[in-house]
């Protein structure tokens, strides 16, 4: 296949950036999207130009490192698929493909398609964990969990923290990520002691990072490679309402 790529090039955080057009030829439909970019980078390197910077690691859809907006859709046109798992057979010969980074104030561009997603880590650090002894995994049956809760928690635990939900959200909100993390822990017995302080801490960290507010549109869930359901946001809201009513964390009350 021969394609025309229009890619966002930005030298660094202070460069305003622009779209640059690159033709690529002889792309196999069996290549992944990232392999197609590897081909282009090979050409650029041989020509003495700066290759296009993009994040990637596992290339099997489980680490959450990769991510770019392809023709306006986070992770590209294939549902429930990270861009590293997106194959070129979903495109046709002669296509023009626009490639942009995640765009959000809370995700500043480091270079080209690489953005700093440290703010998602800051949200986790504000409560997305359980304070418990580490060590080897406990015996699975030592604490019983209802099957329905285990399933829903597991579904949320599948979030890989890629940030596509933010990229897709018209409000630039990270609420789906937040909701996945809160749902995962608040459905399990281990998550109960810190349940209310967790949700308040994480929501505050989210807002402080400069993410927008959720208006339940649903663009996030539509692009999420792990198909985190929109209903997790209801669980987040419910925990939050409970927490602000309970005034937990105020000693002696």
């Amino acid at each position, binding site marked *: 296949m021969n394609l025309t790529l*229009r890619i*966002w090039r930005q030298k660094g955080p202070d460069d305003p*950036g622009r*779209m640059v057009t690159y033709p690529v030829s002889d792309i196999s439909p069996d290549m992944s999207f990232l392999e197609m970019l590897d081909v282009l980078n090979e050409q650029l390197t041989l020509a003495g130009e700066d290759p296009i910077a993009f994040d990637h690691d596992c290339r099997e859809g489980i680490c959450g490192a990769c991510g770019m*907006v392809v*023709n*306006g*859709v986070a992770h590209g046109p294939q549902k429930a698929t990270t861009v590293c798992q997106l194959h070129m057979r979903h495109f046709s010969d002669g296509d023009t493909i*626009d490639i*942009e980074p995640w*765009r*959000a*104030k*809370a995700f500043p561009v480091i270079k080209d398609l690489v953005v700093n997603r440290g703010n998602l880590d800051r949200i986790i650090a504000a409560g997305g964990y359980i304070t418990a002894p580490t060590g080897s995994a406990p015996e699975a049956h030592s604490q019983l969990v209802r099957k329905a809760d285990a399933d829903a928690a597991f579904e949320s635990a599948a979030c890989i923290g890629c940030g596509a939900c933010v990229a897709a959200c*018209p*409000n*630039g*909100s990270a609420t789906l990520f937040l909701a996945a993390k809160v749902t995962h822990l608040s459905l399990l017995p281990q998550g109960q002691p810190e349940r209310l302080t967790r949700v308040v801490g994480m929501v505050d960290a989210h807002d402080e990072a*400069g*993410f*927008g*507010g959720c*208006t*339940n*549109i*649903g*663009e996030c869930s*539509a692009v999420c490679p792990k198909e985190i*359901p*929109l*209903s*997790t*946001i*209801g*669980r987040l*809201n*419910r925990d939050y*309402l409970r927490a602000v009513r309970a005034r937990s964390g105020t000693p002696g009350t």
Partner: protein
Amino acid sequence: MAVTGILLVLFLIAHMIGNLKIFFGATEFDHYANWLRTIGAPVLPEDWYLWGQRILLGAALIAHIWAAAVLARRARAARPVRYVHRPKVHVSYAARTMRWGGVIIALFVVYHLLDLTTGDLNPVADQQHPYTNVVADFAPERWYVTLVYVVGIVTLGFHLRHGMFSALRSLGQQTPRGERRARTGALIFAVALCAGYLVVPFAVLAGLVR
């Protein structure tokens, strides 16, 4: 957003039911309208209840618009650099048009108050006989008034379709099955409310209410 929206919705339901009284004839309708001004009397002086409700609704509306403006500003700040290639929001037309739809509804409410409450834009403007005001409003030769009402009410329907679902979600609706129910319920409610409001101008237009 959700709490103020629900207050406004409660008003919309009551208002719609009240409007349907027009099908019982001029005497009934005018009597009902006059009763509205005297609810609470003689415990309260005449008009007090009405003004209480107006203040409450006005406050809810201002708080609602305020919250919407805060969300819109946060959204704008959250994405300082726009996408070059960005298709429209595809999951829901209603969700996409919440902000502009809200502005259209607010403009419509201003027009509507000038028309049927103060009477400034009404051809009859008889405070004691709202029935005649309504009938004059939707007369066939004033088709553009009906058009404005249709646009306002249909926009409201879209606003409520997403708004009702969103309010339930904001208040903690949390299961996928419940989500399907909430969406269906919001759709049915929005359609029913639109129909309940639209039937009045169309009945006048068709000569069923004279």
